[in-house]
């Protein structure tokens, strides 16, 4: 018994088009985008993008710096814009005079530095463009300690591969460390001259919506790499064991670790 309908070329084509459009259009792609094998394949593009940009762009190439007149009047604050816990409130009420940045991990000399001590270190001021992953850009002036100066002071060990930034804001709203913001960068970006820990924005102490008392600036990547409310820095040889294992709050939620595009 053979009741199989004959599939001619046109029929085949029509069915193929219908299948393609129903997977791509009208929300049915939800399942396609959620398939682990699809995710695995799509994620491969990041490797190619990172390798190409690392090859095509010199590790020392500087992001464009702008003039005072280019500074945005209305610099958008995204992600967390305030922190509603008692510990942070108390620190903020006192102008962060009691706050200390901790530098830990694969360093010869763990550090605890106050804002006054950070301000006494070498500083860099830069007017740069902040590109959000959402698509908008704002221009601001940032002053802070070059991360390299801090890592040199802490005597970074040769086995360190990445620098992790632990933040005070609970963007995931889980009430524990799992929801807290964190980020990581490799050594190429950590040693880049424009990578600074900023304590000033547009000539004034860093405002709370923009990450007081200290935020990271990684000028050749997107905004979500530039962790705000930085409390602790840790030098590690890999990020696989940290929280979601992808090297950052947004990375654990599907965004690329390499945010150069």
């Amino acid at each position, binding site marked *: 018994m053979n009741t199989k309908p004959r599939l001619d070329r046109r029929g085949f084509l029509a069915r193929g088009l219908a299948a393609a459009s129903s997977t791509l259009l009208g929300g049915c792609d939800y399942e396609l985008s959620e398939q682990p094998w699809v995710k695995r394949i799509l994620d491969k593009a990041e490797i190619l993008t990172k390798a190409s940009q690392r090859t095509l762009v010199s590790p020392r190439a500087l992001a464009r710096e702008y003039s005072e007149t280019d500074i945005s009047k209305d610099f958008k604050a995204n992600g967390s814009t305030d922190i509603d816990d008692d510990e942070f409130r108390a620190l903020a009420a006192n102008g962060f005079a009691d706050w200390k940045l901790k530098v830990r991990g694969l360093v010869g000399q763990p550090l605890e530095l106050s804002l006054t001590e950070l301000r006494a270190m070498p500083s860099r001021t830069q007017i740069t463009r902040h590109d959000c992953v959402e698509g908008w850009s704002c221009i601001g002036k940032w002053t802070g300690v070059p991360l390299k100066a801090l890592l040199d002071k802490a005597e970074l060990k040769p086995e360190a591969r990445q620098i992790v930034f632990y933040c005070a804001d609970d963007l995931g709203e889980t009430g524990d460390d799992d929801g807290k913001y964190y980020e990581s960068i490799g050594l190429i970006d950590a040693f880049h001259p424009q990578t600074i820990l900023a304590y000033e924005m547009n000539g004034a102490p860093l405002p709370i919506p923009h990450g007081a008392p200290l935020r990271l600036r990684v*000028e050749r990547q997107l905004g979500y790499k530039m962790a705000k409310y930085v409390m602790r820095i840790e030098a590690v040889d890999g990020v696989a064991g940290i929280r979601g294992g992808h090297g950052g709050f947004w990375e654990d939620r599907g965004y690329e670790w390499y945010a150069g595009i």
Partner: protein
Amino acid sequence: MTNEGKQEVIYRHSGAVRVTHWVNVVALLVLLMSGLQIFNAHPALYFGSKSNFDDPVMAMRPMKYGEEVVGVTTIAGWNIDTTNLFGLAYSPDGDYEIRGFPWSVTLPGHRDLSTGRRWHFFFAWLFVINGLVYLLYSLASGHLRRDLAPSGGELKHIGPSIREHLRLKFPQGEEAKRYNVLQKLAYLIVVLVLLPLMLLTGLAMSPGMDAGYPFLLEIFGGRQSARTIHFIAASGIVLFVVVHLVMVLISGAWNNLRSMITGRYVIKLPEGQP
């Protein structure tokens, strides 16, 4: 095919052209839909280096008119009510959702910027590699020079060609064996202007590439201008595809489609020709 009149079967499209054409169809469809997903994360466009949020060139957003909330598309200062299409959409229960383009045309089909970016960059790589293969083949094989570059004579007779097109009169016989001048120009503009422009404006939005190649910012007048031009060029490609599909349909849909699949194209010979 029917037997009325004489006909000749020619081999119209080479294998390389056919394969790169269909890869491009898939890549551009995914790039468009994932691009709209990315656009929806901030459905507004600006000129210059930075976003002047109060003064977008184009924006899709909700606005309140009295008690009513409507979706508004602003273009160069003009506000157009686009409720349920762009800016804001009501669901049957009276709730509304703020978004740029409808989710039916985005990839994924719900708000998911990170997955939209994954689709976009994977297929951007496919598009670039496919485009390079096509360009190298077209230069080396003479496809670009022989089939696409219009001659001086053809350019002089562009007027009559436009009139014939508008009357939907298509070339037959010997003339149908090659692209007419309007086709040549349309394909050249897409291949040599719009598609490279998509790539360059895309790269100009990359803070990493901007550091290594600051001319990307210079040629487009800043990152936000590049994003706006990316959107306009994409609209240009959509317009081309619409016209292209209409032309394919009315000038012999099956013959055209088959020639882009198997390569074979049937030419009807006018009466009286051998």
